[in-house]
């Protein structure tokens, strides 16, 4: 991918607001608690908007100004560690760290991440023809 900053923000907002939301709700129904996964999704989204600025800055050092899938995986792991670390150390409002098993967090985060990653790698282009030419921007 060769995203622009607006493209990064819009794509993240769109993906987490659609596929991320659906996967989270399904996951919540499965574990019998939709509230915590939804709040966590919100944190991943909110922090992510900040991370994207950092990624965009790092990307500008690359000659091709691109962001390969491998980097998306790397940043995905990094963001998971940060959110999990914050929950377990200083704590994030709305999430009870002691009541959140690591495996549950990992399962939820991975499910959302894999779903959105796969959609970005292809199917999104089928319904949004211009998306790939605009660095991930719609408007």
């Amino acid at each position, binding site marked *: 991918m060769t995203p622009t900053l607006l493209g990064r923000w819009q794509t993240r907002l769109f993906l987490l607001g659609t596929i991320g939301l659906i996967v989270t709700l399904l996951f919540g129904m499965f574990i019998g608690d939709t509230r915590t996964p939804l709040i966590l999704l919100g944190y991943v989204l909110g922090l992510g908007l900040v991370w994207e600025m950092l990624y965009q800055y790092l990307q500008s050092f690359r000659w*091709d100004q691109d962001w390969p899938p491998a980097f998306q995986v790397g940043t995905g792991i990094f963001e998971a560690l940060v959110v999990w670390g914050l929950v377990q150390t200083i704590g994030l409002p709305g999430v009870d760290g002691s009541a959140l098993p690591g495996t549950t967090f990992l399962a939820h985060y991975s499910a959302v991440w894999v779903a959105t990653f796969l959609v970005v790698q292809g199917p999104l*282009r089928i319904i*949004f023809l211009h998306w790939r030419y605009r660095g991930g921007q719609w408007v």
Partner: protein
Amino acid sequence: MNSTSTMIQVTWVDPATEDAAVYRGELPISIGREPVNDIVLKSNRVSRTHARIERSNGSILLIDQQSRNGTRVGAERITQVVLQAGDSFQIGPFTFQVDLSDAEAGGDTGLNSQGADAGELAVDATLNFSQVGDALLPFTPPPRAEYAFPLAGLDQPEVSLQELEQSGLPISETTYLAIGGGLGSFVWVDHLLIFGVKPDQVAAIGLEAKPHGRYERLCRFSQIPQHERLRSNAESCPDNIWGWPGYASREVWQALRRGKLGDAVTIGWQVFGEPTLAQTYTPQAGNVFASIEREARRIGWEQIWRYGHVKAIRKTDDGRYVVAYSQTSADGERQHKLMLARYLHIAVGYPGVRFLPDLQVYREQTGDFQSVVNAYEDHEHVYEHLRAHGGTVLLRGRGIVASRIMQRLAEIRAQKPNINVLHLMRSPVAMGHQFKHARRTVEHHWEFQPFNWPKACWGGTLRKLLEDADDQQREELLNDWGGTTTARRKDWAQIVERGLREGWYQIRFGAVRQVERRQERLLTQLHGRGAIQDEAQLWADFIIDCTGLEAEIERNTLLKDLVERYDLERTLKRRLKVANDFEVVGMRNGAGRVYASGAMTLGGPTAPVDSFLGLQYAALRSVDALVAARAPGVRALNSLRSLTQWVRWAGGVHP
């Protein structure tokens, strides 16, 4: 060097077009971005007043004017250096050669002619593509009078329908007409049909039935046979407007079906990690051509395309265009026809191959077209000779084509060890181009980049930057991103390493004074350096010119006529100027519109004009504009229609 001389000649190459430029003038000379300089360089890496060349105590000095990004000799940043004939220095993306001898011999007035042929050689250094049988081949046509279409009314910028009817020529009508018939036309027609236009409203005129015919031939000549890989991205699919599934996914799928798990993993890893962790994936030429043929069958290209050589385009008095074309039958009889259309798309590709002036002089003087060849000509005989007898090949130019030929030579050398490769480059490349914080890598004087422009030029930050820029800024950006590069492939890099180590591949630098035939071999004499003009000599059995294709408007009679007749605007790269939606604005005629894409539009809203994805981008933008203009039959491709159309594509059903 003559110590009383005050004349100097410097030559350089336009980073984006590779057109040679020369400046010859009296010292001192100033170099910088501002128009007041003697040599004006458009680049963000060049300061307003960047450097000066002046005479001091019998020497010629190059002095950096405290520029922000520096003046370099090799990798070294200099403040002041003595210049001698044959020296080279670098300012931003430009590399200069100093040539004092020519300046003394011929120079009189200052000349700043970016785009002009370098040196003293007043020779036509381009071979136009000409029709030979059913194929277009690089070929020097015998000089002949300008061909005139037998219709008087076409001399006027606007012709009336009445005049056309009176001509007695066969006239057909359509709504959308693609001129060129190559890949640019094909992807435009593909978009139109997917956007809802009925096939009977669309026509394409060109010389070859296969949309990829000419491209495929140029690939073959330049040593990319069917099984080799093109320098193109997985998602640049001329057969699929969505770019998904890309060629990599399809190849993974095929490998899995054949049970080749290892291949599937390799390709998957490539697209996952490229270009940082793995070498960039590129599709096999044969797979790409097969996919284009499949899409051509799906959209009914055979019914849309018709054979013809387009001679002229004129506005009509009813807000349309008349396209005059000729058809030559097998027995050489030529028939003239006219076609009327409301919307035109012009994508005629490169009109010819470019020859280095000294090589063209050699060919014209000796008539020897066998030992001095262009990489884009059919030159299989060179490899056959080498396979049988061995020999030395001199390569000129260092782009992707040079690297492919190098690879082919290495393959033959594996069987026939007495093959040597001399690589003549104009100047050393110590540092790659730079843009803001980013820099291109260099190894053994080859500059690396996966594709021919930075990847974000297709759909990222750089595409946006260029689109929003004005003409001057576009010129600067293109120069900063341009330059001759090749993709870093492991197998190929190993060939270069081994060749250099074993001594059968050697790189030389210098400017050519003359190429001649002596003792049944080719002798290339280089200009000397400094006070010692010993004229280095390079002996070879063959010379292969890998400097590329020519895209000057003047080379294409149709475009030349159009630009002159309608006084169309040009970009600073001297190509055809198009709006951000690829419309040739000066051709607007009532509701009628003309769009253009491809090599002719360099300097406009997009950089990778001649790439698959660049052509698709241009097609999409122009079809979007047609939707906005409420052109007949075109409908916006909303998500649902896009999905439906994709399903039809996947099922091989007509759009």
